[in-house]
């Protein structure tokens, strides 16, 4: 064998080994069965709070839905991003089009690991990178609540993504890089209130999905956690919600909690864009939950704006 041939063969072997490792590493994983056995049977009443905290209706109910229609989770809301268009699926109790046939373990695998009952990776447009931090009990309660919701027939269109983003297996490697059930921000001597807020913001609330800038591979840049980011959709930005320059240093905790409740900023501008939908969910929480979120936001590290300065 010539020298070039040898190098080529070795190179080929390395690629083959790499691909095999990649194939192995990118395999969808379900959560350890023992995780969910730590939870007691789900409580639908408590699950309603998690439903609002998690913002489920914002993507899975029809756009602009009000009242009871917010509990009709037939999906269909589109998220138009640079990767392509993601379509929120039907998660109503319909047995064939929705999740009516799912077990709690199926639900936990989706929420905590981003894996479907048939063992495929979900795209992280479904914010399981945040939901991965949720408590098993909250997953069980949310599942119990979802089971009280109506079945709505109808399948949504599939995602419309360009290569290589349409290769689901690639998400497995992405998950290795970006998925963690550990808290993002370690806060020394944090009060229970701050910790409760951290859980709501970093877990079910998935605030970082829009407010944290993303790196070249679309993963959250946790070094600039909640510093604001270029919006995934449209040509706007999502504001910096840390105390850094351009952020909300001049908002008090009461200002933040009040904004989440009423939609008005301290100077009486009103909530806008996709945050309007989020704020409607936050308004359904207790003032205690909103105050915890506010306390956490005042406790996290300050960063300057996570998006480029505006061109004049």
């Amino acid at each position: 064998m010539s020298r070039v041939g040898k190098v080529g063969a070795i190179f080929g072997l390395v690629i083959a080994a790499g691909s095999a490792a990649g194939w192995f590493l990118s395999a969808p994983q379900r959560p350890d069965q023992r995780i969910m056995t730590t939870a007691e049977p789900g409580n639908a009443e408590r699950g309603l709070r998690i439903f609002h905290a998690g913002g489920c209706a914002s993507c899975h109910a029809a756009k602009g839905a009000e009242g009871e229609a917010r509990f009709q989770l037939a999906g269909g809301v589109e998220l138009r991003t640079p990767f392509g268009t993601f379509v929120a699926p039907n998660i109503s109790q319909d047995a064939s089009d929705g999740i009516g046939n799912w077990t709690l373990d199926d639900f936990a695998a989706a929420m905590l690991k981003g894996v479907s009952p048939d063992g495929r990776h979900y795209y992280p447009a479904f914010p399981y990178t945040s939901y991965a931090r949720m408590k098993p009990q909250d997953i069980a309660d949310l599942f119990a609540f979802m089971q009280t919701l109506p079945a709505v027939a109808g399948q949504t269109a599939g995602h419309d993504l360009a290569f290589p983003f349409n290769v689901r297996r690639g998400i497995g490697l992405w998950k290795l890089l970006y998925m963690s059930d550990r808290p993002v921000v370690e806060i020394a001597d944090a009060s229970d209130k701050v910790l409760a807020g951290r859980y709501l913001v970093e877990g079910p609330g998935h605030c970082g999905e829009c407010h944290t800038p993303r790196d070249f591979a679309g993963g959250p840049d946790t070094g600039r956690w909640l510093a604001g980011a270029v919006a995934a959709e449209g040509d706007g930005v999502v504001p910096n919600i840390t105390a850094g320059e351009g952020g909300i240093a001049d908002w008090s905790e009461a200002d933040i909690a009040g904004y989440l409740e009423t939609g008005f900023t301290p100077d009486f501008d009103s909530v806008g864009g996709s945050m309007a939908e989020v704020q409607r969910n936050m308004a359904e929480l207790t003032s205690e939950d909103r105050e915890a979120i506010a306390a956490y936001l005042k406790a996290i590290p300050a960063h300057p704006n996570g998006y480029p300065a505006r061109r004049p």
Partner: protein
Amino acid sequence: MRKLLLAISILALAGTAASADPLADRKALMKERGKLTGDLSKVVKGQEPFDAASVLRTLEAMKDNAGKFDIGALYPEGSNTGDTSAAPAIWDNPDGFRDAEKKFEDAVGAALADAPADLDALKAKFGAIGASCGACHENFRIHKG
């Protein structure tokens, strides 16, 4: 006397002429709306006492503000760039934008037609006014930093 009449007519003309700086004008109107909304909100939250006459004055000022909100003059074609948070949807969906603005006018009109006599009445009217702010900003305003 003639000079005075002339001055008045010039002023009147200037008032109807197309705005020289629509971005500044629409921002000033929105700023004023925010301030008036804040005045009502302080009463709703109990930070200021309820005073029917003062609430009525604020609602009248909101009506005046809405009356000045001439969409054609404030959002002419081409005023979508520069230091503005106006969303492209304003020009892509002008009917939707008009409807959203009308919700504010209607909510203020309803509050004036049945002027709040006590705090609870104001709360109900204020809810509709506040909702109209968010409903419009949800689709027609974007943050640009």
